[in-house]
């Protein structure tokens, strides 16, 4: 008898918690938003990622990134858009690799730009409300890219109307200001940057070498957005 009561009590509590979770989820989730569906490349390096909990290093959990919600109607708009770069003659590959939709970590899928501070710039060929930017620098090896800065603008020269949406240059090496975002280890999940609906046509991504060498790499950059309102 007591056993049955205990089972019923536990079952009731479980059901209640489940219902409350669903309600809470539906209340916190904006009805105008939907989960951003991403296609990730297969992981390339095997090894236990370290969960380094410090204020300015990204926590690597080894688990998949949680869902990211974006306005309904958000689409991938960067595919095969024109790309320019500060290094006009990449050491390996072509700037077109940045938006070609190929995200494999294997050789032959990344563009390598010269040493030091370099950038790539994507022309979205129209103004958009940017929801998210996903960047894979190089994920065949556990490495950290330095001074990663993502800026957006409606000016192709980035002289005016520039918004910085990500900056982990913690010592201002780039001269673009000290960033508060965290350094992170590259994985097949890429780095998702919340662009918070910023209106822009051009996306420029900076980096300044990495922990393996002084070169700069891009496997792919994806920009998700809705048409500008």
């Amino acid at each position: 008898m007591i056993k049955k009561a205990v089972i019923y009590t536990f079952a009731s509590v479980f059901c209640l918690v489940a219902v409350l979770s669903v309600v809470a989820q539906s209340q916190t989730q904006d009805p105008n938003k939907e989960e951003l569906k991403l296609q990730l490349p297969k992981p390339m390096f095997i090894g236990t990622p370290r969960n380094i909990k410090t204020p300015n290093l990204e926590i690597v959990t080894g688990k998949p990134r949680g869902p990211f919600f974006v306005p309904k109607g958000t689409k991938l708009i960067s595919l095969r858009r024109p790309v320019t770069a500060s290094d006009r003659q990449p050491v390996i590959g072509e700037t077109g690799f940045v938006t070609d939709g190929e995200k494999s970590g294997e050789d032959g899928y990344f563009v390598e730009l010269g040493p030091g501070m370099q950038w790539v710039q994507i022309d979205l060929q129209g103004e958009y409300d940017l929801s998210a930017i996903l960047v894979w620098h190089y994920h065949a090896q556990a490495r950290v890219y330095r001074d990663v800065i993502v800026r957006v603008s409606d000016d192709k020269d980035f002289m005016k109307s520039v918004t910085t949406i990500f900056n982990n240059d913690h010592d201002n090496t780039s001269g673009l200001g000290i960033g508060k975002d965290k350094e992170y280890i590259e994985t097949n999940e890429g780095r998702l940057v919340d662009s918070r609906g910023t209106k822009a046509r051009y996306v420029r991504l900076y980096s300044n070498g990495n922990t393996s060498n002084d070169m700069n790499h891009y496997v792919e950059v994806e920009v998700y957005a809705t048409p500008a309102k």
Partner: protein
Amino acid sequence: MNKTAFRGLFLLVLAGALLLRLPRLGLRPMHHDEANQAVKFGTLLEKGEYRYDKTEHHGPSLYYLTLPVAWAFSKHTLASLDETTLRLVPAIFGAGIILLLLFFGNGMGRPAVLFSGLLAALSPAATYFSRFYIQETLFVFFIVGFLGSLWRLAEHPSTGWALASGFFAGMMYATKETSVIIFAAVGGAIVLTMIFQKITISGKVPLPKIRMIHVLWGLAAAAVTAFVFFSSFFKNPKGILDSIVAFKGYFEKGGSAGFHAHPLLYYLTLLAYSKSGAGPAWSEALILGLAIIGGAAAFQKKDRRLLKRNTGRAEKLFSSATSAESSFPKFIFFFTVLATAAFSFLPYKTPWNLLPFYTGIILLAGMGAAFIFQFLRKDYLKVIAGLLLAAGLFHLGWQSFRANFQFYADPRNPYAYAETSPDILKLAKRIDGLAALHPEGRRMLIKVVCGLDQTWPLPWYLRSFDRVGYWQDWPTAGGFERVPLIIADQDQAEKLGPLLQDKYQAEYYGLRPDVLLVLFIDRGFWEKYLLDGKK
């Protein structure tokens, strides 16, 4: 080829060897193993102390032979040492190997000596490890010296050559424990050469014309040389016994290689062709191909005529009753095959361990190249062969240039094995910049909390700091209150992070491919550093 032309060409080859070995020796970051050797040498330099370690570090010759170079550059402390001073030692010995090839003039002929020298001068493997502060290039120098003086002893038996053979044998032993493999390969090659001569020529096993007294002189010279070095110049007589006891550990290490376990054909495939992803292709197949020709030529009936044409004297490695056939190329062939097989069968493999048997391959390749020109009768065929060979040599030189000056620390370079990332230089620069601001300067406390495999080459880069502590696990490292800098591997950083919280700024630095270090900088100190604008 007359003597003057030979001398001129040989000097050119030597100059080429130096050109690839001497410039920009400080370019590549210190490898784990180099740093280890450098710090060991630092103790000898500063305190005059050296004790053979039967578990690690190999033989003493590298350290003692670095002393005169360090003194010549007025370096008397570990802190004052630099990469160039240290790497000058293998670079000099690397070029010296080519000089020692002159020992073989009568055995393989001047053209073959020239070709061997040229291939040794340009080989990417040979040049890369001639710029690497470890024992291997010195070991090869002593092997070539040993083979050369042994050959001279067989040709002109004398006490001098007996002593020289013994000296080089002793130096081999005082350099690397793997010298026993080379001694066995030399012994085996002598026996096989004699048996071959018996079967094919004379019908009886010939004996070398070396007298017993010379053998005794050689053994005595080898024993004295080894004793002098292993006993730390008579300060530690036990060192010679330790050198024998050490074999137990090295046999175990050779059998259970762990990370360094590689397949049987690792060395030969590495030399033949390697390409990593989008990186350039690397190949020393030219040398391997010529060595095959050289090996085949060693057994050609034409040897006698060719030898006479090139050397003008019959060789006498074995008794004069043996043969008019050349025995030296056969000896080198058997030595190379045996040494290559022995090193290949050992599960423990690193790229630099190929050098001892690769020397034999290069000698065979030199003979192979010379044979091609002797074999071809028509001038236009010789021109074509010359052009092809020149293109191959240019390709070797180009690869050497790329290996040493462009891809020197790049995992796409097959010889850059577990190489330290150039990022370590940024870590060193950051710490130097911070020390310049710290009230205690280079007496600033630095705690290094890293596993053993992640610690090196940090002691090299932190050699000028007075207060650096090393721990493998954070609980043993004491408190972290007001410690300006902490360096941790990823494993330890994971545990230290919550402990240090926001009191520290953290930065990632690359140590090796897939291995990262975290530098924790006291937050207040970091902010002061940023305000000062120094990076």
